[in-house]
């Protein structure tokens, strides 16, 4: 999501028919702001296809 764009969570919720109250809207706003740092941290090298799966994380057969 582009930075500096304030998401209107209430409008999105209404459009999707989710009766989100003030507390939900507030928590999403806070989470969105915080998560911006995670988005900013990620690099192309973090894409799974560019990383080997560690041996002990191999999926069960």
């Amino acid at each position, binding site marked *: 999501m582009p930075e500096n764009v304030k998401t209107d969570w209430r409008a999105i*919720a209404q459009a*999707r028919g*989710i009766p*989100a109250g003030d507390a939900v809207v507030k928590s999403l706003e806070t*989470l969105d702001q915080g*998560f911006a740092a*995670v*988005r900013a941290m*990620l690099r192309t090298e973090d894409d799974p296809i560019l990383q080997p799966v560690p041996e002990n994380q191999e999926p*069960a057969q």
Partner: protein
Amino acid sequence: MTILETAAALRASKLSSVELVKDSLRRIENAQPTWNAFLTITAGQALREAQEADDELRKGKDRGPLHGIPIAHKDLFFTRGVKTTAGSKVYADFVPDFDATAVRKLRDAGAVMVGKTGLHELAYGITSNNPHFGPVRNPRDPERIPGGSSGGSGAALAGGLVLMATGTDTGGSIRCPAAYCGIVGLKPTFGLVSRFGVFPLGYSLDHIGPMTTSVRDAAAALQVMAGYDARDAGSVRRPADNYMPPREVSLMGVRIGLPANFYFDRIDAEVRVAIQAMAKRAAALGAIITEVRVPDIAQLNLVARVTLLAEASTVHEKNLADRSRFGADVLALLDAGRLVPATDYLHAQRARRRFAAEFRALFHQVDCLFAPAAPIVAPRIGEATVLINGEAEDARLATTRFLRGINAVGLPVLSVPAGNHSSGLPMGLQIIGKQFSEAALLRVGAALEDVK
């Protein structure tokens, strides 16, 4: 008495499983009006199974240390023929026709289930203040929460009602009640203990583990519970370790990392001192204490939150048509989860790999980390905000601040008591290790326990 002490007494014919189970049932009955630790009590079935356990031991059939021991299951675990509510109105009358793998394994090991313990609704919260079944109360102070979501299991152990209970941990739900109730809780490595037959909350975050009153009891229970299960897509095929610490444990040369960042920020001063005292105790046993920088746990917490919001709403979306069946806090989380962008969920998954790599690098420097389980002691029931060094913080966020992130990287964590606060309430130490290092964590925990 611990499981291991009780097991010895059973084999010496100093007591019987029937006596143990009767005593457990009597304690539960007496405590239930105050602590509300149980949602279902299975007295008849328990007494029958206890009799069978005694008969088997008399005939020389010994199923191991849990044989004849009264235990309880969090009411999130499917139990054949016994109501399994998930602490939810949605499943209030649900009776499974099969046992969860963990339940079956413990039954096969001779453990006797005396009942199902209370929890936060759908295991989605840390207070265990359940709007449908009433609040579970902390035996150390009934005005306070036991933590959650495995709050009933924590209360049952702290109150001496059973010797072992199962728990689940999606964002701290074993470790939080362990810390707030002053007991031992083990969140194993993701994939070590099967989740088959346990109501999910977060597909990629859910962990199953034992809760006990001693470290060696946790080892005995994990020995039974661990192992590959084809019915759990996340189960890992690997040989079982021997989890039981030796009678005498040395920590000579064990490298323990004490985080220089995050884990001692915004923390009650007494909790800080308690964790530092545990590190000193380990050092006195020969451990090498090193200050280390840990990955950005604040970011990792956000990664875990985004992941859980989306996954939990996916799990429960089908039931949201009737909103009256949910408590307000859980409903708010389920609504929020339906609004998390898919791109953020996927960014979170990318970030998890990055954090996992950072932790792998950290565990080349040290064998385990010592960290507080929570920055505070158990809040009062209904207390929305707590004060930490004069600053207000949401009680739920404060409680999970040191717990949640680790679920996103699937690392094992042993939570052990770290003494009492001046308020009389217990504090908890997390011993965090690399993947599948449960045996090492249990050795460290046992060493600390042996000299307390």
